Every structure is written in C-alpha cells, then in structure tokens.
C-alpha cells in the first residue's frame, strides 16, 4: 500500500460557488468552459499528481500478477440522500466490486454525464464526497472524463467509475465456489441504502432516521483474506436486488442450495419499519456497505468475530448455510418455523398497499 500512498489525494476547500451558477452545454464542448469546469470544480478536490498531469490517459506503475477490473455506472435518484450522494456511492460501489474478488483496490477512473442546469453547488458536494471517499480508501482517482447533455436527459448527473485492483494473495472468491456445508455470513444490517434513497425520493413522503450504509468494504475483506486466504469461497455485496438476488445468483453459479434463517438476519429497526410501511421485503433492498461471506462452516465463528472487531462489521452474523439440496434455490426458515422460497424478482420491488 506504500506505493499507492504516494498517489493519495489531497483535499482542499473549493472556492464557494454563487448559488445561481449552473452547468451549461458549453461546459462539455472541450473549449474554455470545459477547461474552467475542470480547473474550478474538479481539480480543487482531486489533487493526486497523476490526475493533475491531465494526460489523455493516466500512466501508473505496473504490478505483477493478475488484476481485477470493475466498472459500474451510477444513476441514483435523488443524487443526494442521507448518508451520502451519488459521488461517494460511485467510489464505494466500484471499490467494493473490486474487493469482492479478493483484490486490493489500487486506482479509480470516473466519467461524468452532467445535465445542463445542474447547480455547481451540488456538483461540488458530489466531487467533494468522491474525493473524500477515495482518500479514506487510499485509492487515487487518476483519470476522468466529463460530458454535458441537455436539460432533462440526465437526472442531474450520472457517474461511471472503473476500479482496478491487484490480486496479491491466495484469496480468490468467486460466485461458483460456494460448497455444500459452507456457512453464509453477512457483515452488517441489510437494506439501509435502498430505504434511505426511497425515503429521500419525493412522493412517498416519509421521514426516517435511515442513512445509506454506503462504505468501502476493503478493510473487512483484508481481514478475512489475511486470516482465511483461499478458504474465503465467495464474497458479494448485495446491491441492486438485495441479499435475495445476490444469493440466488451464487446458488445458481455454484449449483448448490442455500438455506437462510430469518431470525438471524440483522436489520435496523427503522429500516424494518420503513419496509413494513411500504410492503417491501428487506431481502430485496440494496445495501452498499455490507457484504455476504461464504466460507467453510468451521471458520464461521472466527470470521464473524473478526468482522465484529471492525466498526463496519459490528453487526456481522451467520445467516445461513449452503446445502446440496434444491440446487440453485434459496430457501428461508421463517421466524415461525415454516419455510419459504426466496426467489429472484422479475423487476424492482414496488411499494404495495395490499
């Protein structure tokens, strides 16, 4: 990590923007306005030496071995929500995807599609949050791109981030590696991000003490990788589609069944309450700062203890096991003692009245 430390971002306070200043189409044209945008809105936050060279591409040292590359595009609406904004989410999300392969995140790139009319103040908060998230993770944002589209075409802004990580050790989790008898663990309470965003979305009108759990999970991954190495069979952050979708994909890839215990699922009271009100099942609601861990049952207790010793994993728990029965299907023992299938949903969950 020491080499990366040389590239770590600095953070400086941007000049306060007058509230009436907004993105115009000209900011995307590559001319003076574009240069000003870069200089006034991006560079004050993102100060690593590679980015500052402003080359067409970032030139970074090569690491030997294999690399993990992940890209993701973030279109969350609203762009700001309790616990974060689209910027911090874009950093955490992609770094987590890299970490879920057992890779050490090294570099980030970011592409922006800005909507004409986006307030500079909002953009500042987003870039500031990205920079802070990248700094906290020790991963520099080394290159980027900006385009501007007409009013109405971008919900404020969209961000694509690509993350590159290196696979240094024996820890090689993959979706197909779940094995009969493995334990299924979760690092923290589920569904916080999805409900925080929904609460912030205009129209459903409820206030909740729910904050997005968006966070970089690599510190937890490092702990587990260090202790259990190749025995970490699967890592997965349950984002879109929640725990249910993630486990269904893993069950299908591994051709195993999964049995969950409803009573063991950690969930915050206010997240559970918001789900009740809207008739949503928390198993399908996104989290952005929790991960599923599947490893041999004999390591389960130690792994939970390891995660709990870190603030991000304070509510880590064992929530189920991998079985040979019903391959590809996820089943849950309910609090009452009955069983139900935990299926993939055809599309998004919709709030219901029934």
């Amino acid at each position, binding site marked *: 990590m020491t080499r990366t430390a040389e590239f770590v971002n600095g953070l400086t306070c941007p000049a306060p923007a007058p509230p009436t200043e907004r993105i115009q189409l000209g900011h995307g044209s590559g001319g003076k306005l574009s240069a000003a945008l870069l200089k006034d809105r991006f560079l004050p936050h993102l100060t690593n030496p590679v980015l500052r060279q402003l080359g067409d591409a970032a030139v970074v040292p090569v690491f030997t071995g294999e690399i993990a590359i992940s890209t993701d595009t973030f279109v969350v609406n609203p762009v700001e929500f309790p616990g974060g904004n689209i910027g911090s989410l874009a950093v955490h999300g992609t770094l987590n995807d890299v970490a879920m392969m057992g890779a050490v995140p090294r570099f980030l790139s970011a592409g922006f599609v800005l909507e004409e009319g986006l307030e500079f103040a909002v953009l500042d908060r987003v870039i500031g949050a990205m920079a802070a998230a990248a700094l906290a993770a020790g991963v520099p944002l080394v290159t980027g791109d900006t385009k501007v589209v007409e009013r109405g075409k971008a919900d404020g802004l969209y961000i694509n981030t690509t993350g590159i990580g290196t696979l240094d050790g024996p820890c090689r989790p993959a979706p197909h590696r779940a094995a009969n008898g493995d334990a299924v663990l979760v690092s923290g309470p589920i569904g916080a991000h999805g409900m925080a965003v929904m609460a912030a979305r205009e129209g459903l009108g409820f206030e909740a003490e729910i904050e997005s759990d968006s966070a970089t999970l690599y510190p937890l991954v490092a702990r587990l990788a260090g202790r259990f190495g190749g025995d970490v069979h699967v890592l997965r952050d349950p984002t879109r589609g929640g725990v249910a979708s993630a486990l269904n994909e893993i069950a299908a890839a591994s051709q195993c069944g999964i049995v969950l215990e409803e009573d063991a699922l950690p969930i915050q009271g206010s997240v559970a309450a918001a789900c009740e*009100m809207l*008739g949503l099942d928390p198993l399908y609601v996104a989290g952005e700062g929790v991960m599923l861990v599947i490893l041999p049952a004999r390591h389960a207790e130690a792994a939970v203890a390891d995660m709990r010793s870190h603030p991000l994993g304070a509510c880590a728990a064992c929530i189920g096991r991998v079985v040979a029965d019903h391959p590809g299907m996820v089943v849950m023992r309910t609090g009452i003692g009955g069983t139900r299938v935990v299926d993939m949903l055809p599309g998004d969950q919709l709030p219901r*009245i*029934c």
Partner: protein
Amino acid sequence: MCLGIPGRVVEVHDDRGLAMGIVDFGGVRREVCLAYIADRVRPGDYALVHVGFAISRIDEAEARRTFEALREMSQLDELDWLRETADQELREMDARAAT
C-alpha cells in the same frame, strides 16, 4: 384488504379544515389523515394506518388482553389442555343439570 400498519400519533394539526397528524412507525414518520378518528385520538395513542389514513384507533387494553390470552393458550401443554377441556365439560354438565 391489507397493509394496515400500527403507529403512534406524535402530533395533531389541521390542514384547511382537515384533521392531520404525524404518526411514528417504529422510527419512520409520516403525515397521516386523522379525520376518521379525530374525535377519539390524542398524541400518544396508537392508530392503524392504511394508505395515509388512520382507519381506527388501536385499543391498547384490548390488545393486551388478546395477547395475554394468546400467550397463555400457546403455552398450554398436553396435560393443561386435557385439564381445561375436562373443566369445560364439567361446567357444561353442571349447566345442563341446573336447567
């Protein structure tokens, strides 16, 4: 029909003649129309809320009674149940004998 959720009435106000309130559902708050129970609800009471409307007040005494009965009944084991059934039959026999 469905999805009626119990919540605690935190505050009551008037919106252009319509009784409204803020109801707290386990940490989540929402504005709810209280017009249908306005005459009998006060802050601190619990209400059953469906699509943003309070459709009844939760009778807390009744809830407690029901729950206690449920708890007792669910804890009856085989012997208790037999004893209870026997007692019930004896009472019925007495009632018939008395007529």
